[in-house]
């Protein structure tokens, strides 16, 4: 073993023995200090000739580098060890609950109204709005329900104390159809409109609330008839329920504002408590629709010999209940927490 090899071995063994950051300084002194191991070997250079001096010098240098590297390595190891020892005392119980952050829920009717609006907008319908407070003219007369028409009494109308005027008594709209008239009067055909809003009937039991939500659509064009209506309703429902096999049944009915009129039933069956659409022998009414009555077109300032219209209406609560399984109608307007946490929608949904 050469001198330098001996030197390296003895220094490394010193480093090896070191077990704390404090001792590192002492070891540095033992190795590199005035009387340190390296100095001692360096002293030996003095008596050597040029060639040996250069050779030994180079050897010592490489030993020095190696020792420094090992020292730094040791230093960081010890440093980490001591830090970890300290961190160990900073223990937190990661199983403890997080700091609470609460989010609200979106009402199912808002979510479903948005879904409906998106589909109708896709089919070219423009959104329209009308007042909840209406009068007999727009709610009945202009929709081909003249005074004392038996259909008026079927509407269980809420009247308000605003004094009557030339448009008749004031009332809470019993359907969104008055929006049709407002929109027709404000525009020239061809056009397609829809409207979503609250409507009111003085009726209250498990299946009726005095307020509910309707969506209504009308299109007036040169070339649109019953067959187009059937296409539109079928496609709307397929899109809404995301069910390509959905099947519907149109059945004749009566609305004063359409002729011919139809009610639309959805085909379904109940399987393991879940509704499955498009099969089985059960039918559920979801929509009323028809070809717009010529009198309504006239009230809307449209010439029935030039244009024709189709119109439809859905109950939004009914669609919501069917799609998302919300049971009791009354709970829609109670805002109960348990109801919301079950049927409400995630705030970013």
């Amino acid at each position: 073993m050469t001198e330098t090899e001996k030197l390296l071995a003895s220094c490394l063994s010193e480093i090896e023995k070191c077990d704390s950051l404090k001792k590192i300084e002492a070891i540095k002194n033992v190795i590199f200090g005035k009387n340190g191991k390296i100095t001692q070997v360096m002293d030996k250079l003095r008596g050597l000739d040029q060639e040996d001096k250069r050779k030994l010098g180079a050897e010592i240098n490489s030993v020095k580098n190696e020792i420094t590297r090992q020292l730094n390595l040791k230093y960081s190891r010890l440093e980490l060890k001591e830090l970890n020892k300290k961190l160990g005392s900073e223990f937190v119980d990661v199983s403890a609950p997080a700091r609470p952050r609460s989010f609200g829920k979106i009402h199912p009717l808002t979510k479903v109204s948005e879904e409906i609006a998106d589909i109708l907008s896709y089919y070219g319908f423009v959104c329209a709005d009308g007042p909840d407070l209406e009068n007999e003219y727009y709610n009945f007369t202009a929709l081909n329900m003249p005074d004392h028409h038996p259909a008026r009494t079927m509407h269980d109308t809420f009247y308000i104390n605003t004094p009557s005027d030339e448009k008749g008594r004031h009332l809470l709209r019993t359907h969104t159809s008055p929006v049709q008239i407002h929109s027709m009067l404000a525009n020239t055909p061809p056009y397609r409109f829809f409207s979503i809003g609250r409507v009111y009937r003085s009726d209250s039991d498990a299946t009726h609330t005095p307020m509910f939500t309707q969506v209504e659509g009308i299109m007036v064009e040169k070339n649109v008839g019953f067959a187009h209506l059937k296409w539109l309703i079928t496609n709307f429902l397929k899109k809404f329920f995301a069910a390509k096999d959905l099947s519907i049944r149109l059945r004749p009915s009566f609305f004063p504002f359409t002729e011919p009129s139809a009610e639309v039933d959805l085909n379904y069956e109940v399987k393991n408590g879940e509704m499955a659409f498009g099969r089985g022998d059960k039918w559920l009414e979801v929509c009323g629709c028809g070809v717009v009555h010529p009198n309504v077109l006239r009230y809307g300032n449209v010439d029935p010999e030039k244009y024709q219209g189709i119109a439809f209406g859905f109950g939004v609560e009914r669609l919501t209940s069917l799609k998302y399984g919300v049971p009791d109608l009354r709970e829609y307007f109670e805002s109960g927490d348990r109801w919301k946490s079950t049927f409400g929608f995630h705030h970013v949904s």
Partner: protein
Amino acid sequence: MRFSFNWLKRHLATDLGIHQIADRLTSIGLEVESILDPEEIFKNFKLVQVETVEKHPDADRLNVCGIKDARGQKARIVCGAKNVRVGLKTILAMPGAVIPSSHEVLKKSKIRGIESEGMMCSPAELAISSDKGAIIELDNEVDLATSVGEVLGYGGGIIDVSVTPNRGDCLSVRGIARDLAAAGAGDFISSDAKPFKDSFKFPLEVEYERSGSCSQYAPIIAFRVIRNLKNGRSPQWIKSFLQSAGANSVSAVVDMANWWMMDSGRPLHIYDLKKIKGHLSVRFAKHREKFVDLKNVEHHLHQDMLIAADAESTLCVLGIMGGAKVACDENTTDILIESAVFDPIFISRTGTLLNLTSDSRAMFERGIDEASCVPGIEGITRLILDNCGGEASKIFVAGREPQQKQAVTLRKEKLLSICGYDVDWASAKAALKKLGLREIKSSVAEATYAVPRWRSDINIEEDLVEEILRITGYDSVPVKRMEDVFVGHDKILHERKRLTEASRLLASCGLSEAITYSFTKESYAEVFLEDGKPIYLINPISADLNVMRPSLLPNLLLAAKRSLNYGQAGVKIFEIGNVFYDSCAQERRIAGLRAGSAHDRNWLQNSRSVDTFDIKADIFALLDFFGVKLKNIAIEPVAPPYYHPSRSGSILLRKKKLGHFGELHPKINKLFGISESLVCFELQAAALLDHKGEKTPYAPKVFPKIVRDFAFVFKSKVAVGNIVNALYKLDPLICEVDIFDYFKLDDAQNSIGVSVTLEAVDRTLTEDDAKGVSEKILKYIKTVGGELRAK
């Protein structure tokens, strides 16, 4: 409209079963609401006769009865009905029977120690009437082997059809049969009454104003007298049919008139002739003329109602309801039959004014067969004479049968355009023919039809198209793709979407969306009304919902209360919706409410109640969403009186009122019975939707910011928000002002810590810049009564 299948089969020869008929009815627009199948309903029921009746040894009011059925099988039944007696024929529910009124399954049970092997039923238990005092008494002639369904009039099952208001003709079994036949569900059996030989002159003097409004509203009215009849009980077949329709049996004559009406759709009224004093007049009522109806309810009539009266009083409000005075009873021997045509709207108005409903009104207001006036009298005469005897007078007719309606022309082109597809012209015409429409003339392009008298609903071309589609079947209509149209900018939809996004934002702030009624309680409306007067409902469904809400807050408070009562520690809700005031003002608002605990109890934070600054944070989240810059906002410490007077404020957007927020007044807690803290806000949605925020041009920010902190003391009351706003405007270098500390030093002095951040877009700021701004700040603070706090 309810009727039994057997009744229908009197008018329709068909091979179809009840369920197939029901499907067919629904498909032609006569929606079947339910089918009652007696085989199902009356499984485990049978007819029995009581053989023995003995007192129950342990109960005074109970009897132990021995009964037997058609096959002689006996059983012991404990029965509490008073009318139980030996020989009585009645209906027995056996163990396993489902009792129609309660839907419960009957079990064998011991009643006071004695086992009862079934139950003898009351009409109420079988859900056929509300009569629950006694058990059913069947006619003695009834054969015990008859099925229960048969005796209860369920002959072949009961069909309940919902008839739309346009189809007056289908308020009768005959009308329904006719429609079914047109749709190919069988053959219509016509049953025209044979001409009848009258035996004496019409004996009464009748006054009827031939000209003027009387003949306008009642164009024709006919009478006949029948004398010397015997008004006993109706034959069983009539009783059964009436039962199937849900009508009670009264007496033979009354039952026959009812049956005739439901069978043929021709309303008739029958007066007890001997109760009519003097001559008969058909006239308008006098102002507030008194009338006592069949149910003994007194009415005061209007001058525009048509009545039949004798020399003394009102006998009948024509077309609506007869009076108690001339009602037939078991002693009636002579009757007057009235048959007429009335104007539908006239009848509807009279009925609405008197708040009276009747089958007759329903038929007249929907429109009846105008040619049925005299044939109707002939038909019922035959029925009465056959069953009750007597002789009939000549028929007295006042007025004239209304003219045949105008013919309706159908253009082929219009048919195709309404249908939207290529309808076969020949089959369209065939469908109309099946419905009894008579072709008057026709060409390649159009056909003109005479409409049968019973179809008062067919008046225009469109009505013919509906009939064609109805009879050929909506199922056969193909689907036709609509033309694609693309919507450009849709302002209203855009606003809807903005508000839905705002809802999501509020939900991410922790508030849940509520949708509450548009009406509320009057006492709440009064408190929350800001401007004008509340709007009242004239006919509310309850006193708690009798006024339109002038604010979203009261119904949110009720919703919060429900959740708090239910044990929720903190409630956070919002609603976007309309409020109403001042006769017809309608305004969309956004309101939020936080109540009780600010956050769920947890181990990291101390529990605290919600405060004004929680709700203010919600508002500022909204303002940020709608692009409102802080500099456009002002807060003023005034709010409506339902707020805490010193913990609430108004918020102004570009100097216009946007809404208010803060803690609610303790009187509101009291009014709603809520003890928890309540903070809320309510803003006008329109102001936010219409707000046009200005865009700041983009400049990359690369130069370091300088932050300076100040601690000020104010000797007077301060509005720190105003100071922040003012500081923003002080120097263009100021990019951020934060309040990091705000507390009371003593009663008079407030200490406020302000952190001001400076930034320039084009250079690195120097110490001199900072110094200059600091001096400006100090100078400004002095003007509002503050100074630097001594160290």
